[in-house]
Structures are given as structure tokens and as C-alpha cells.
């Protein structure tokens, strides 16, 4: 595992993309096939199943370190990462191991098949033989949370560098349902025919946010506009009589949305649609809010009642494959025309609908439509260049999301909690309150939106202004006012304030604003009446 640990260090120590790509490419060029295919798997979110509970790992680590369990538990939140805490408390290694990454992965996958004493012996043996970063990486593998600042895009670039194959082709090859157990480096990367797998999705094209208005984009007639829906981006694949539904996060969601199975009755095989999964009740003008869809997201199987209450429809806005041919290089306007043709005769009971285009002649027209997006339960508008191909990943230039400005309230920070990982030791997780008479009523948490420097400053302040501790949570003196931005507001009986926000974050630290001038619960209720 030394080579993989060295790769990990090289990537972890640098914030520069070029350095990371170079380190990965070097690794891909030299590592044995079994190791490099597992490396690709790990960096694309395909982890070995967790074979040991974290409770056992904590106990064993404390025991081997010769410290009481409570001391381990106190250390963990300070380090902010379980795998790292274990690696740090264990005694230094005396020996070393020359086995590679795939060896250790099969070791820990073997743990599932043996009884607990054997599991423990195997884990302790690994800890005795792996030191430093190797031990940390092993713990990361065993705890299953493997994130290390390498995006799939970055890895694909490195693979392209190491193999000489085009990045776009590799990105497509790496999509879908493969696992190191049932494929090889040869099949996945080198083999001639990459389209053998019927379920394989195309890499998604993602839009950039349009910060200032669209005027800088040029002539309106070169652009097409659609509502930007607040649902789940999905790719519906119809091939060989089967259907597959993929999320943008490359998760296969076919079983979660059984209503889409009927799509095969209405559209021919060899069709791949890009669109938005939305809960949309028949005979209504606009989709239900994201909250309705949220009830479906966590469920692997859907009870009949829920299925009836939250019918999901794919609103298609792009056609990636038609009659078995990859259309991604075809200009958007042509793809759109084909899509409209394909959807023209769909009956109301089909689980696919055409997502409409917005008719506009000037940017002012479009701005006006955008301003009423909330009435359509949309988040804003999408802009797509008529002549653009379907690209891979987030690329500037051809696709833009022009979202509504978020809603905002000014709120008082009342609780603070330290973050995890990169943000361990910093107070980053805050609870905010609004006034209700003379009381402060908590209504949301927020974690993001401040700079590191601001988090450091507020951390210092929290340390000096803690009123009470409840475990890791600190109640602080009500003093600081933050502007909280959010995308939506819903009634929520589960919350003390009676409301729940969508995507709350800190948009500004209002150091200019006195405590008393923060918003009130009445203000929130007014927003709920208008936007809820």
C-alpha cells in the first residue's frame, strides 16, 4: 500500500490541480492493474462494503492504544475524523508491509465472512503492519468514507494523461454499473467496445450560475430558455427493452421511481433522456414543492400509498441518444427538435413529459419570466446556447442557470458547534434565532457561506462567549447577527418556529446590525404566507 499512500500524500498535501493530476497519472502509469482499477473505483465512489462497525473499531483502537474508551471518544471530535483518530492513537509500527492496495481491500472484504474474534485479529494485525498514511488509508477503507479531494473529473484527466485516451471517452467508460470484481482494467479502459453495458449513462452536463444578468451572453436569439426546476436531475435510459434511471451523482435510482417503468411503452428502445424528476399531480399547473419529492428520495422501495400521493414524472429537456445513436455532438436546437418530436404523441399517463421552452424575444422578457418563477415552483430559468453540443461536467459558456435571488432574513446566532474534517477545531455549525417578543426562537441551522478567516474570527469569539455547553454544542451570548439566505420556506410542525428553510446558508455577517434589529417570527410567517 506504500505507493497508494504516497499518492494519497501527494494529493493531500497539494491544493493545486496540476500537482494532483500529475501524481495520479504517474500512479496510473505504474501501478499493477488490480491496484489501479481499485483506485479508479475508490475515486468514483465505489467503496468496499463496511465489514466492521465503527463501535468495534473504536473499542479495539482504544484497547490497542492502552487508553480508556472515553478518552478516545473525547479525542475523536477534536480530530474530526474517525479513521484519522484511530491512526493517531495507535502505537507506532515496528514492521512494514509490502502488499498493495488491492491486497488490503480483499483483506477487509474477507472480514464479512468470518466471526468477530477473527475480524478483530485481522484488523489489529493490519494496524500493527501499516504505519503513518498507510494506516490512515486502511482505516478510511474500512470505515467506508473515502473522500480525498479528487473529483471524478480530475481522475479522468489523469487517466487520459496516463493512457493517451480522450478524456470524454474515459468519462463515459467510467459511468454506470461496473465494479472491480466484475471488470478488469482491460475491459474498462482499454477494450475497443465501450458501449457493451446497456445501463451505462452519459456523463451529465452541468450549468454554471449566471451571476450578473444575461446581457453579456450576446443576442437572445442564440439562446433557448427553460424553467429551472427544483427537482432531481435524472437520466432515463431506454435500451434493449429495459429502463434505467440515473441520478446526477451517478446513483442508479431505477427502483426508487417505479412509475418510470412505463416509459418503455411510449418511447422506443435506444432513447436516452436528460430531465428533471418532479412530483407533479395530474391536472395541476405546476409541480409540487421539493418537500414532496423529498419523501421519495430516501426510499429504496416505495409503498403504494406514497406512490399515489407523490407521483413522479420526468420532465425531459434534452435528448442524448435517439434510435441508438449518441446525439451529444448534435447542436442543442436540433436535439431539442428531435426531443419535441419524440414527446409529441405522449399520452397524459406517460411518465415522461416535455419540459417547455420559454418564449422570449429580449433579455427583458426573460427577466420578467424569471421574476415569476416562484409561481411556477421553479427556481429560476435555464439558458442554453442553441448551437451547443452536450458537454461533460461543469463547463462555462453554453449552459447557464439564472436563479432567483434567494430569500433572506437577519438572524441571531445562539448555538455553535465545531465542524468536522477540514473544519475540525473551528466553530462552523450554527443555530440561528429570530425574535418572538423578547424571546429568541431558533429556526434554522447553517454551516456555510463564511470565509475561513471569518470562521476563525467567530471561533475565537465563541470560545470567549460560551454560556453553557450541551455536549459538543455551545450556547453563546446572543450578539452576532447574520443574514441567512435560503431558497424556500415551508410550514413544519417539527420545528419550534413552525417553519423549515431550504438550503439555508450565511450570506453575510451583519456586524453593522444591532441584535434588536434582527428579524422576527412574524416576518418569517409573512414569508411563509407568500412563498410557502
Amino acid at each position, binding site marked *: 500500500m506504500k505507493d497508494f499512500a504516497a499518492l494519497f500524500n501527494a494529493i493531500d*498535501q497539494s491544493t493545486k490541480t496540476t500537482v494532483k493530476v500529475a501524481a495520479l497519472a504517474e500512479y496510473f502509469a505504474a501501478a499493477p492493474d488490480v491496484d489501479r482499477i481499485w483506485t479508479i473505483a475508490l475515486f468514483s465512489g465505489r467503496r468496499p462494503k463496511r465489514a466492521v462497525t465503527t463501535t468495534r473499531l473504536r473499542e479495539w483502537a482504544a484497547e490497542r492504544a492502552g*487508553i480508556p474508551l472515553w*478518552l*478516545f471518544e473525547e*479525542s475523536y471530535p477534536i480530530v*474530526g475524523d474517525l479513521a*484519522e483518530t484511530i491512526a493517531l492513537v495507535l502505537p507506532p509500527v515496528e514492521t512494514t508491509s509490502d502488499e498493495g492496495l488491492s491486497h488490503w481491500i480483499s483483506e477487509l472484504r474477507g472480514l464479512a465472512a468470518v466471526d468477530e474474534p477473527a475480524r478483530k485479529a485481522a484488523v489489529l494485525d493490519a494496524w500493527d503492519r501499516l504505519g503513518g498514511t498507510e494506516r490512515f488509508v486502511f482505516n478510511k477503507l474500512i470505515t467506508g468514507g473515502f473522500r480525498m479531494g479528487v473529483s471524478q473529473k480530475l481522475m479522468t484527466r489523469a487517466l487520459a494523461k496516463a493512457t493517451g485516451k480522450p478524456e470524454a471517452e474515459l468519462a463515459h467508460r467510467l459511468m454506470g454499473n461496473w465494479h472491480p470484481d466484475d471488470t478488469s482494467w482491460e475491459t474498462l479502459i482499454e477494450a475497443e467496445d465501450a458501449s457493451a453495458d446497456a445501463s451505462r449513462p452519459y456523463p451529465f452536463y452541468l450549468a454554471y450560475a449566471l451571476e450578473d444578468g444575461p446581457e453579456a451572453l450576446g443576442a437572445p436569439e442564440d439562446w433557448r430558455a427553460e424553467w429551472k426546476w427544483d427537482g432531481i436531475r435524472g437520466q432515463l435510459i431506454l435500451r434493449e427493452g429495459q429502463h434505467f434511471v440515473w441520478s446526477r451523482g451517478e446513483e442508479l435510482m431505477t427502483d426508487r421511481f417505479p412509475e418510470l417503468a412505463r416509459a418503455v411503452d411510449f418511447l422506443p428502445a435506444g432513447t436516452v433522456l436528460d430531465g428533471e424528476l418532479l412530483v407533479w399531480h395530474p391536472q395541476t399547473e405546476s409541480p409540487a414543492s421539493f418537500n414532496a419529492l423529498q419523501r421519495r428520495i430516501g426510499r429504496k422501495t416505495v409503498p403504494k400509498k406514497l406512490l399515489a400521493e407523490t407521483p413522479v414524472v420526468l420532465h425531459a429537456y434534452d435528448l442524448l441518444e435517439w434510435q441508438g445513436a449518441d446525439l451529444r455532438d448534435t447542436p442543442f436546437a436540433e436535439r431539442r427538435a428531435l426531443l419535441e418530436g419524440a414527446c409529441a404523441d405522449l399520452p397524459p399517463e406517460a411518465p415522461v413529459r416535455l419540459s417547455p421552452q420559454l418564449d422570449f424575444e429580449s433579455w427583458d422578457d426573460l427577466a420578467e419570466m424569471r421574476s415569476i418563477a416562484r409561481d411556477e415552483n421553479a427556481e429560476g430559468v435555464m439558458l442554453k446556447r442553441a448551437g451547443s453540443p452536450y458537454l461533460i461536467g461543469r463547463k462555462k459558456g453554453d449552459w447557464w442557470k439564472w436563479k432567483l435571488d434567494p430569500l433572506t432574513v437577519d438572524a441571531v446566532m445562539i448555538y455553535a458547534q465545531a465542524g468536522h474534517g*477540514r*473544519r475540525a477545531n473551528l466553530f462552523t455549525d450554527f443555530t440561528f434565532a429570530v425574535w418572538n417578543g423578547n424571546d429568541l426562537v431558533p429556526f434554522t441551522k447553517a454551516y456555510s457561506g463564511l470565509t475561513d478567516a471569518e470562521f476563525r474570527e467567530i471561533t475565537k469569539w465563541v470560545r470567549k462567549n460560551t454560556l453553557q455547553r450541551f455536549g459538543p454544542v455551545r450556547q453563546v451570548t446572543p450578539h452576532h447577527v447574520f443574514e441567512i439566505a435560503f431558497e424556500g420556506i415551508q410550514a413544519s410542525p417539527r420545528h419550534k418556529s413552525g417553519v423549515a428553510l431550504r438550503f439555508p446558508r450565511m450570506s453575510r455577517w451583519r456586524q453593522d446590525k444591532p441584535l434588536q434589529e434582527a428579524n422576527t417570527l412574524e416576518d418569517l410567517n409573512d414569508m411563509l404566507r407568500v412563498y410557502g
Partner: protein
Amino acid sequence: MSPALTFTDRGIYCAAGDFYIDPWRPVERALITHGHADHARYGHKSYMATHAALPVMRHRLGDISAQGIAFGEPLTIGDATVSFHPAGHVPGSAQIRVEVAGEIWVASGDYKAEADGLSETFEPQRCHHFITESTFGLPVFRWQPQAVVAQEINAWWAGCAAAGKTAFLGAYALGKAQRLLTLLDTDIGPILTHSAVENTNEVLRAQGLALPETIAATAELDPKVHTGALVLAPPSALGSAWTKKFGAQETAFASGWMQLRGVRRRRAGDRGFVISDHADWQGLLDCITATGAENIYVTHGYTDIFARYLNDNGWSAEVVPTGFEGETLDAEPAA
């Protein structure tokens, strides 16, 4: 009989000798363990510290009324006998031993167990009551021998030099910076210093410490003349405007906090080196054990956790709130 040392809102107080140790509010008579800003503060009527600690204190605090004392030299103050003993934290840093009517207390200030070749090495003092820090009082803190870290730093510097980059190393101006100087391999290239570091270097050189040659990175300095250089600077100066003129560069930070990956990634720039002037977990326990003290007072750091561990393991430990900060994550050095 009241204890020889008590904890007051001004600092650690000895009634028998009417003096304070490292007080954080102005007092008549202050005995100072070392020159870091949280221990040697402004505004006392008179100061006492080791001969080796005084010059930096004078440099930082200006015109103070101060008396020097040699390590191990016993001194009677009122009914108390006082002596200063090496703490191994930074050059001149001391533990202060106070004996009143046979009861012995040691206030350790900040300390480090490992001999670093620069500071006077920690000498445990047998005592009944030991006042300890716990900046790194968690079992996740375990330092590598300094020679190992020195190798890592020099390998990084050599790599930067080979790639035509200037290596910026962030470290506190008093203590850590000079310790790093003695670890750097001067065959790799020239060592440039930020003014905060260089000012402290001058003071320490003047009192006889052997430090390698350094070049002050003043505003007039032409970086192109010094290829392959390492620049030693306080952490606050890393990434600020004056570093721009050095062109291609990498930055690293040397601190015990670099043990934690989260902190490393947040603060370290390109690299983080784990090296501290405080004792690690085992170092704290070893030093405390060596004092033979039964009563332990934990002043700063992971106080609650560390005191609980001590209490579970046969000591009588309590947390005492102080104005000391140790090596904090956020504090920038007092210039």
C-alpha cells in the same frame, strides 16, 4: 495553613513571598517563566526571569524593571525559597520552583520533554504540587524525533529549490523559528528571514546562541539574487503581499497542530510539519510522573480531558483557569 501557591484572578500567587508567577494583570512583582506574550505581559512593577530569557523580554516589553537569575540559583523572597529550572520550551524558559515551609510547588509555564539542542533541556523537579499545561494533552498528539522532522523539512526545501521555487516556512518568531534554523541544511540554499524573526534572532545571537547565517528579507532585498532560498516568517506573514515578489513559491507551516489533517489542510498551504515546543501526550505524562507530585493543576489546553485522565490514574488533578494560551490554532504570534 494556606497553600504556598494560590490561583487568583491576577495569576498564580505566592503569599509567603508576595509575588506572582506569569500574572495576566499588572502586579508589583512578577516572576516570569518565559518571554511569550501570554506569559510575559506588560505593566508589572518588577520582573524576574532567567538571564537567558530576559533579553527577549526587554526587546518585546521595552523599558522594564527586571532582575535576572541563573538556572538553579536559590533565592529567598520573604518566607519562600525560589529557583528557576530549565523547561525546554524555548531558550531561557524556566519552571519556577517555590518552597514554603517544606511544601514544594513547581509552576512549569510551558514545557517540552525532548532535547532540541537549543533550549536548556527540561529538568524534572521533585515536588508536591505541579502546575502543568496541556496544550497537546490528547493521545492523538505524538511527536516524531526532531531529526526525522528535520529530514522532512529539508527534503521539502530541496524539492522547492530544485523546482526553482522559494520555500516559505511559517513558524512563531520566538523559539520555533530559531529551533528550525538549527535544523535546516544550509547546503540547500540561503535562509531569508522576516523582520519579526530576524529581530528575535539578533537578540538571541547577542546572548551567545549559535544560529546559522540568515539574510533579512527587507523591502530592498532582491529575491532573484537568492535562488533556492527558504524564507522563515511568522504564520501571519505567509500569503501576504510581501511574499509576492518572490515569484513561484510553496508555503509550509511548522506546528504541533499540523498533526491534525483537518488543520493541516486548512492552514498549511502546501505542507505542514509536525513540530512543537510543547510536550506531546506521552511527554506530559512522563514529565508529570518524574516530578513525583501527587497534586496536579492543569492551566491551559485540553484541561478537562487531561485532568480527568490524571484523576482516573491516581493523581489528584484539577483545572485552574488562567490567561495562558499555549500554542493556539488561531493566535498569530506577538510580532
